[in-house]
């Protein structure tokens, strides 16, 4: 069996496991569906700040929904890899012809695909329920940004799993990291409603620029090229997080 075949078979097995997992159903189906139901029923509601007004459904589908799905995917992935670490799975795998690296790639690929499919399905469903989201070429342009959002989350999961000793601690740390992100990335509330110092510093937080980019593309129809600095900051974060992930999550642990 070649390395590629082995990785492919692992990815297939991981996909089947993913689809059977109740956690995946909760984070990828139940949470997005509940959020969409809430937003649909509150579609008369809008946020007003400065001289602007934006319907809640538009703002949250492209912010809270996007971040919630990405962090939900991260949370479910973290549960898996922290359990591997705590249970010594990687160490056992390392004595088989399948390398730990293949195991991780086999798990990451289905997670990333699942995350992307859910994000796109969420946006399509949001649009069908009344969110004024552009679903044409703008969505295609937003796809690489959503890939960046997904990989930012998966990298964070590796770091947290590597930095903690038990799945329970990993879960607690992930929750502690996740909740401020909902507040300060502009996912839930418009950053323009906050003081200038917070608006400026929030630009350097992972996800902030990526969410702003997706909103700009899908709500305002602006081109991707308008978001060079946001994408650069997002890319720098991914590079830093990936580096941190390789240091923190050692395969032989």
């Amino acid at each position, binding site marked *: 069996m070649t390395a590629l075949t082995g990785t492919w078979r692992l990815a297939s097995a991981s996909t089947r496991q993913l689809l059977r997992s109740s956690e995946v159903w909760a984070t990828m189906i*139940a949470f997005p569906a*509940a959020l969409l139901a809430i937003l649909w029923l509150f579609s*008369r509601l*809008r946020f007003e700040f400065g001289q602007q007004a934006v319907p*809640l459904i538009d703002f949250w589908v492209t912010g809270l929904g996007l971040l919630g799905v990405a962090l939900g995917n991260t949370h479910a992935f973290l549960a898996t890899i922290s359990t591997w670490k705590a249970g010594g799975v990687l160490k056992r795998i390392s004595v088989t012809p399948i390398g730990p690296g293949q195991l991780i790639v086999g798990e990451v690929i289905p997670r990333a695909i699942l995350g992307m499919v859910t994000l796109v399905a969420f946006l399509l469903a949001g649009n069908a329920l009344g969110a004024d989201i552009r679903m044409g070429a703008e969505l295609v342009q937003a796809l690489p940004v959503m890939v960046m959002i997904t990989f930012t989350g998966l990298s964070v999961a590796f770091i947290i799993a590597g930095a903690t000793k038990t799945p329970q601690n990993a879960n607690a740390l992930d929750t502690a990291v996740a909740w401020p992100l909902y507040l300060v990335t502009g996912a839930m509330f418009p950053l323009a409603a906050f*003081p200038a110092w917070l608006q400026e510093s929030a630009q350097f937080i992972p996800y902030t620029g990526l969410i702003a980019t997706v909103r700009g593309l899908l709500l305002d129809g602006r081109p991707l090229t308008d978001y060079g600095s946001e994408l650069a900051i997002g890319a720098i974060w991914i590079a830093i997080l990936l580096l941190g992930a390789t240091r923190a999550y050692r395969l032989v642990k």
Partner: protein
Amino acid sequence: MTTAALPLFRASFKMMLRSRGVIFAIVTASLYIAFFGLIEDLDFGIGAETIRFFDFVLPGFAVFLMVYQIQDITVAVAASFKARGILKRLATTPLSPARFIGVQALTYVGLGVAASALVLTIGKLVGGNLAITANLLWLIPLVAVIAITSIAMGYAIAGLTPNPQTATNVGGTVSFLMFGFSGVMFPTEALPSVLPEIVPYAVPHASLIEAIRGIALSGDSITGYGEQVLVGLGWLVAAFALAALAYRFTDE
């Protein structure tokens, strides 16, 4: 409380104070409100009406964030008891499920009330327009009813689900839907058609949060909220009955 339940209450109280989840809940609820205090210019708009965001969410968040965490902890603990066969062992003792749930609920009520008071105080300090009157004391029994209802719902969810993971997922989804529809975050008057009239009766906590908001923001008297209190008590009884039925000591 009977002498039989007192040792259980003491043990539960000690366990609660040791829980990291409890500390995390208090800290996060306080930080959320402190963060909302940073908001300089944000309103909800419904048609021609405008509602100041921070004032609207402060009373509901002060109660719900804490109660949400307590319910989450209850679901996890109760489902874990069930999965580990602790209930079957308890079945051989004189303790009844109703008393067990009652003692656990009482343990967390004081915490829920104290944490909500702390969060409201922080909210006031960071700019919330709370009406500081003696009527605020009515929030104590109202928050207590919400906390006990949530804890009973946590036991009901743990009893009705097959394993801890499913229980946690179902609990999270139920809490999230309550967060959306109970008037914690969004004005229910923005809902379409007849839903604004139905929601206060159909969604747990919604009627009591309406009363809490009126007392906290306008200094209203509790007497103006008799119907809301009755609906809240109805949900408390219903949740307790469901919990006692669903969370059986014979389950594994």
